[in-house]
């Protein structure tokens, strides 16, 4: 591969990065939801250290992108909003990981 082909690949990889996932807070949220079956807002708040408004905003973006699913249910008469990563969200996180690994591997020594 010539250096210009290398640069083209690098640029393409950079532009292919999913900006929804790339934001550090959203990356952490997706990572958390990736390892649990489901979690509520308060759990994510404690684990991420974000403010309520910040977390809400990021969750809305992830929900709009179809990466996170929000369900409301009642447990012992207490309402609970549960968040789950969707299959699309899992694929997005995995694709992001592969893309970033590729970019880092292509870095010159």
């Amino acid at each position: 591969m010539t250096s210009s082909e290398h640069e083209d690949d690098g640029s393409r990889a950079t532009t292919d990065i999913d900006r929804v996932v790339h934001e550090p807070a959203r990356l952490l949220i997706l990572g958390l939801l990736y390892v649990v079956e489901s979690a509520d807002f308060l759990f994510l708040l404690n684990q991420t250290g974000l403010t309520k408004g910040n977390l809400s905003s990021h969750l809305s973006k992830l929900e709009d992108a179809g990466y996170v699913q929000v369900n409301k249910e009642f447990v012992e008469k207490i309402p609970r909003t549960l968040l789950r990563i969707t299959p699309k969200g899992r694929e997005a996180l995995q694709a992001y990981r592969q893309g970033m690994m590729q970019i880092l591997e292509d870095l010159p020594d």
Partner: protein
Amino acid sequence: MLETGDLKRIEQKAFRHTLQDGLVELTAGVYLVILAGFLQFTGGVVVALALFFLIGVPLVRHLKNRVTYPRIGYASFAQGDPGKLGLFMLGFLLLGLAAMVTVLVITGDISVARKWYRWMPIFIGIVLSGGFIGLAAISGLVRLWVYALFSVGLGVAWSIPRFEPRMENISFYLLSMGLFLIPWGLILFVLFLRRYPAPAEETSHDVE
């Protein structure tokens, strides 16, 4: 987040978060004491086991819903590969059995059935330690490794004295293991309540 190890650390941290209330220790400790009582005074464990599933498990779930989750939030974890879990538990059962049989052979008690009960604490200790080690592997909590070691050590310790009637060793093991776990659980629970005061309202937080 690029390595599998990062996700593993996130999972461990999340799991540790849910164990900080001390309810595992508290309920396990209380249950072991009750089991010891049943064994000692009725000689049977079937009722105790039934109580565990009919009352114990729902009680823990209720406490978690009312006390723990409103304070630190709720998360459910994947059950894990049932095959692997089964193999893990079977492994510790067999290990416990092997340890007990080894001791029986060495002491010559293997030929006398009523003497087997004396060495049962070793078996129970190893099996219990398997549960703690499993939780420790998922959460990375050091104190669970301590419980596992203590469980085995206590099993050995309560197998040494010769008691009559034959169930005494087992009862004393269960009682002492329970009395060891209960204070731990209480301390963790009190620290948990102090660290996470009761929420102002019992409502969930909605995504805005």
